[in-house]
């Protein structure tokens, strides 16, 4: 091939188009356009057609998945309730140093803003109060009370408001308002990490009696890890059986694996309640065979143990199926060859068979782990007090306290955490090494 790249009358292939353009003109298609452009056109059309087919899915994913996630995550750092309702106060609070006593102008701004807010939307002052109340309890009633009397208050407002409620003289409420007045703020993400964002712009640890999130993140990690390991330990032999037994038997077994998979999670979880509760099937059996006394039945449900058992059972198919599909492709001749070369059963399994199942373990483990880390309904039903996970707290803030921002912040932390684990997995095991089927 040396002659092609060598200088001379015969040109290198890569340089051909330009050079030949100088000399003999481009290669032309039948209709006279250059072949290169014609090819590009043809490729472009076919690429567009392919994209056209994929567009509905891409749009769907964007609209139904990516976009809502971003909106939600945005809420974790952005909450303009206060700024929107009380624009003048927000301006003054931004200039305030958070140490000196608030001046008359700030008191007056609160009243003007409250009156205007109420005219705009009857419920607005209460919404603002609820936002401040997240930073300092007692602010809500303070805002409601002041709102009711706002029209009747007269200058000097400082005196009038402190008269109305002595909380107005307490600088802590003003500091809480300063935090709430920052629309883009790390307050909620800090709170998701058990930190408190203060008006000075610093972070301090939350009162230990109210710290909960870090503990729950750790517990979520612990439960997910245990469940993953348990599904490997239980699923591996099952998958091996499925892959090696004759098809007739293994198909039957496969149905037994899939049948619970097709059953509602709710049904499976509540059946575990029936099985494990203190007057349940398992305890009745234990009492009957004399393992425990009737008045000392085991607590196996409404605690962490119950969560672990039920979650392991529910997530087991997600481990068995990838393992099975990988094991199915491993030719039995390898193990036979190892044995014929003198390997013991154990060596043949450990050195020859097991390494080939690693992609299945990896796929199953990451599936189970990531499903487990966001698990919600099972811990909610059988978790009791020490078996609940971070998703249950997120749910609590979505449904009960209606603190969407904190729920979003917790979701953000969870998402970052999962992405970090994913990255770690990629570094240690390698994501290419995963095989789903």
């Amino acid at each position, binding site marked *: 091939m040396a002659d092609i790249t060598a200088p001379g009358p015969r040109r290198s292939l890569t340089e051909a188009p330009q050079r030949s353009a100088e000399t003999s003109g481009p290669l032309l298609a039948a209709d006279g356009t250059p072949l290169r452009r014609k090819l590009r056109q043809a490729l472009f059309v076919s690429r567009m057609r392919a994209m056209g087919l994929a567009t509905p899915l891409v749009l769907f994913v964007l609209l139904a998945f990516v976009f809502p996630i971003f909106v939600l995550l945005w809420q974790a750092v952005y909450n303009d309730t206060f700024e929107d309702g009380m624009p003048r106060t927000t301006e003054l609070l931004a200039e305030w140093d958070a140490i000196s006593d608030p001046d008359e102008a700030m008191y007056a701004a609160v009243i003007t803003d409250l009156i205007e807010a109420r005219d705009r939307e009857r419920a607005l002052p209460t919404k603002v109060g609820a936002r401040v109340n997240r930073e300092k309890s007692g602010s809500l009633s303070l805002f409601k009370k002041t709102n009711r009397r706002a029209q009747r208050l007269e200058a000097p407002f400082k005196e009038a408001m402190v008269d109305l409620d002595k909380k107005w003289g307490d600088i802590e409420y003003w500091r809480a308002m300063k935090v709430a007045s920052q629309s883009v703020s790390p307050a909620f993400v800090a709170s998701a990490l058990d930190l408190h964002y203060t008006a000075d712009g610093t972070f301090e640890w939350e009162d230990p009696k109210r710290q909960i999130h870090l503990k*729950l993140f750790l517990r979520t990690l612990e439960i997910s890890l245990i469940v993953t390991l348990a599904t490997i330990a239980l699923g591996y032999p099952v998958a091996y059986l499925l892959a090696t037994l004759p098809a007739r038997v293994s198909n039957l077994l496969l149905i037994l694996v899939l049948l619970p998979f097709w059953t509602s999670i709710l049904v499976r979880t509540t059946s575990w309640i029936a099985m494990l509760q203190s007057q349940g099937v398992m305890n009745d059996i234990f009492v009957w065979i004399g393992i425990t006394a009737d008045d000392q039945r085991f607590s196996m449900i409404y605690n962490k143990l119950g969560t672990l058992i039920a979650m392991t059972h529910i997530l087991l198919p997600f481990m068995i199926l990838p393992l099975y599909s990988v094991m199915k492709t491993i030719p039995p001749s390898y193990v036979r060859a190892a044995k014929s070369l003198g390997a013991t059963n154990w060596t043949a399994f450990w050195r020859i068979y097991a390494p080939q199942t690693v992609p299945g373990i990896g796929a199953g483990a990451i599936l189970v782990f990531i499903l487990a880390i966001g698990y919600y309904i099972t811990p909610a039903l059988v978790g009791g*007090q020490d078996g*609940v996970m971070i998703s249950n*707290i997120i749910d609590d803030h979505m449904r*009960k306290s209606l603190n969407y921002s904190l729920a979003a912040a917790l979701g953000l932390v969870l998402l970052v955490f999962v992405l970090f684990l994913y990255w770690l997995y990629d570094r240690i095991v390698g994501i290419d090494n995963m095989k789903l089927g």
Partner: protein
Amino acid sequence: MKPMTFIATAVSALAIGSAAFAADSITVVSWGGAYTKSQVEAYHKPFVSKTGINIVSEDYNGGLAEVKAQVEAGNVTWDIVDLELSDAVRGCDEGLFEVIDPSVLPPGADGTPAEDDFIEGTITECGIGTIVWSTIFAYDTSKMDSGPTTIADFFDLEKFPGKRGIRKSPKANLEMALMADGVPAGEVYEVLSSPEGVDRAFAKLDTIKDSVVWWEAGAQPPQLLADGEVAMTTAYNGRIFNAFAAEEKPFNIVWDGQVWDLDLWAIPKGTPNKEAALKFMLFSTETEQLAAQASWISYGPARKSSSPLVAAYNSKPDLKMAPHMPTAPENFENALQNDFEFWADNQDELNERFNAWLAQ
């Protein structure tokens, strides 16, 4: 017909059709179980036969999340909701409910004007009260010979060993803990307003924490008692009464230290069926309907004029309702009304504290 006109006609026909359909049926949301049944018997059935408007009954577990989501999305499918007082007030403050003009309420059957007929505090800006209910604790008499008699007994694991069922929420529990610790009902919220008071309540809860089975839906506690999962449990008094009256369970209610509250109807803002929902609200809070409900479940009617009409349990003429009401004088001796203002201010902080305490 031109295509555009055709589409316009079709669309308006659809709109008229759906509007007509909308008025034919309203969605009434309540707490399920025996309580919803009492409403179906006392309110829904007579309402449907009187007005021809159908009722779709839905259950929920309290809270404002669904209403908030519907109102904020502008897609309101619940037409009228049964709420606890604190949620009714909070939702009203946040603009989630329609404001009700109290002058449209009809007078009582005895002619008393509505504002005098309704028990004080049961008419709020957005909500109209239906019942007085109470969080009490109960036990199974067949399993305990000499049962507990005071709220302090509920926290006494030595005298009365066994598991305790408690609602998974700080509300009512902190109050009961303080009363069990010797705080008189009248001072409970005063004590609870200080950090030391909160510590004291949690310290009292700590003494039974390891023996607690937590419940969330109102139907759970009678089940827990019946299954023998718990020796005693807090519960809504009507649920225990229902198990006792309808299912003949040997349950007994301890009224000492009860925390009572109100339930109200409120109409989510922006419902397309506001008129029909309002009609239902007014109908169901009339003297006769409130009295009829009280013959199905032992919750006190919100109108004074209903009380004399309440006599006996619907299927058992011998079972008089009066002694089973939270407001019966002998039950009302050491009773505390849930303070919605206190909870509006402190529920974020106390919920957090409660969750942290649970997770410890």
